[in-house]
């Protein structure tokens, strides 16, 4: 790795500087820095980093302590959700907490959240960039919802701060039988390494909307979620390309009867490389998962979806389904679809399937025969593909506006 040595050296120096800032977090930071120092990250990841390469995530501006002017506020680019408490995160610095419902607690590492094992719930071997995040983290946001509380809607809005790269961490804990609607919107214009780490307590319910509009720098985002007994986690994601973006989602159905539904739409254009890797692990019995992923690629973009269902030993009567539908809009574009099943229990229901197709010429002609020109007809049909399964709430909030540039390309 050509750029690795200089990156590692600056990252390690930066990490040591940060020790003084957040002493309570120092031991975890040091252990991740030590992993970085071994320079093994990225060396054995050929298969999982086959499409979007890992190199740009192990290079400057990550690790650099340069500061730059914060980007112009882009609040207008964020979608508004009814009755949402807005929390702004600039770089890794959480802004002033919005008014929260009682039973919802918001703290930061720097604000004295105490010593928390920040990586305890993260599969760091699977997600080695977690070490970069841990070594370079300046602060983290911790949100907890007390048992039985309906926390309403929290709207996390990420923008770039003064650092040359955004390294952020949010940890969310839902107490038993609590509820939360979480909206996560990213408008970072710099290199990004962002982790959202979620625990959904027994009988709790989390409805998560993740909006990742097109960005201009390498972007790695991880959502890792543990779902407890009788708990539910729903994710509706919309992700567009950047020159290089990798989006990881890891859902672990730990509790019996835990269930999850992941609906993801992703679109890549220009020369974007956009990777989505979803792992759903069934560990409890009678767990249910549904994954529906719609992908679109045009121009010379490359879109990858790697969806894995993993049934652990003893996870009997797991019921898992994965559907991946892709629309290839340009003969130069490329779509890689990789649905995977790994099953270690004998009484399970699993299905997975992937298709790649083009716009139906009969549909295009039908619209043209009514006077709609070809480009508009294709945009209308592409939009229709994006609206499959879209909730009225997201549609009304203007989520399709995120695709305006994509649809015009």
């Amino acid at each position, binding site marked *: 790795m050509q750029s690795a040595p200089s990156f590692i050296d600056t990252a390690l120096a930066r990490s040591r500087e940060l020790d003084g800032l957040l002493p309570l977090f120092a031991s975890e930071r040091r252990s991740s820095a030590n992993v970085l120092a071994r320079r093994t990250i990225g060396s054995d990841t050929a298969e999982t980093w086959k499409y979007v390469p890992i190199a740009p995530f192990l290079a400057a501006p990550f690790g650099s302590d340069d500061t730059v002017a914060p980007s112009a506020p882009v609040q207008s680019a964020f979608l508004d959700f009814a009755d949402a408490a807005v929390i702004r995160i600039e770089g890794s610095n959480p802004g002033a907490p919005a008014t929260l419902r009682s039973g919802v607690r918001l703290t930061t590492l720097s604000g004295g959240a105490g010593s928390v094992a920040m990586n305890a719930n993260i599969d760091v071997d699977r997600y080695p960039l977690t070490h970069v995040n841990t070594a370079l983290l300046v602060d983290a946001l911790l949100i907890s919802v007390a048992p039985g509380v309906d926390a309403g809607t929290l709207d996390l809005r990420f923008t770039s701060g003064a650092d040359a790269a955004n390294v952020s961490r949010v940890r969310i804990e839902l107490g038993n039988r609590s509820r939360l609607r979480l909206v996560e919107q990213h408008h970072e214009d710099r290199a990004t390494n962002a982790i959202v780490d979620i625990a959904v307590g027994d009988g709790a319910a989390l409805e998560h909307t993740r909006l990742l509009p097109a960005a201009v720098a390498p972007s790695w985002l991880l959502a890792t979620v543990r779902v407890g007994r009788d708990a539910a986690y729903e994710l509706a994601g919309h992700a567009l390309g950047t020159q290089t973006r990798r989006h990881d989602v890891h859902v672990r159905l730990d509790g019996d009867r835990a269930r999850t539904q992941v609906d993801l739409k992703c679109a890549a254009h220009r020369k974007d490389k956009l990777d989505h890797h979803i792992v759903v692990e069934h560990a409890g019995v009678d767990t249910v998962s549904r994954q529906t992923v719609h992908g679109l690629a045009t121009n010379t973009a490359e879109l990858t979806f790697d969806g894995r269902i993993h049934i652990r030993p003893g996870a009997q009567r797991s019921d898992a389904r994965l559907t991946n539908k892709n629309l290839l809009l340009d003969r130069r574009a490329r779509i890689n679809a990789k649905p995977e099943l790994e099953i270690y229990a004998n009484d399970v229901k699993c299905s997975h399937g992937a298709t790649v197709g083009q716009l139906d010429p009969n549909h295009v002609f039908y*619209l043209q025969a009514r006077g709609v020109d070809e480009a508009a007809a294709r945009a209308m*049909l592409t939009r229709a593909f994006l609206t499959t399964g879209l909730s009225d709430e997201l549609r009304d909030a203007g989520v399709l506006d995120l695709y305006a540039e994509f649809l015009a390309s």
Partner: protein
Amino acid sequence: MSAKLLEIDDLHVTVAGTPILKGLTLDVAAGEVAAIMGPNGSGKSTLANVVAGRPGYDVTHGTIRYRGESLVDLAPEARARAGVFLAFQYPVEIPGVSNMEFLKASLDAHRTARGEVSLSAVDFMKRVRAVAASLDLSPEFLKRGVNEGFSGGEKKRNEILQLLVLEPMLAILDETDSGLDIDALQVVAGGVNRFRSKTNGILLVTHYQRLLEHIVPDTVHVLADGRIVKSGDRRLALELEEKGYGWITDAA
């Protein structure tokens, strides 16, 4: 009858390299309803589709003129905006595009081409609802995806709805009667008859005489093996019903 709306002269068309139309000549005047009849595989649907400009229908020889101008090099949308309308034999279902959104985009395209301003949303809704009511289509249909989950009869009525909203000058009805029960047939025929006027022309492609009892044609043409082999008035259709197609196609 006045000026020619559609003039087709010695038209040869191939589909995927196979010749289907082999020297078809046909005129439709303003105000005329011309029925095209013929056995399966004679080229009726090819004729309807090539006039509308469907990709894959290649004109290898001959001309298609609409109001004096050649259509052959025009994109399908340009033909539609100029006033050529194809009612599809098999209207497609397009989930995710609502009927309303689709109709509005179509009408806006037509009005812009004619140099007219777009209708306001309110006027548009009024107009579409009135037409829908005349075709026994519930307003609920308009909110659904284009033809999504519609029965065969509902799809055909939706084609006629579009015809009446877009107000073209030349309507090509491709087997609009197929798959309709008698009640639906009467509703559809009623819609077509409302469209009929001194200035509009209709090319009625059908396999059966039945439709012609409800939409009475001025002229009837028999198409066999890619050519018009016999022309007459509506009595020809009755004769065909009695004798079948064999006596004409064998002679041709």
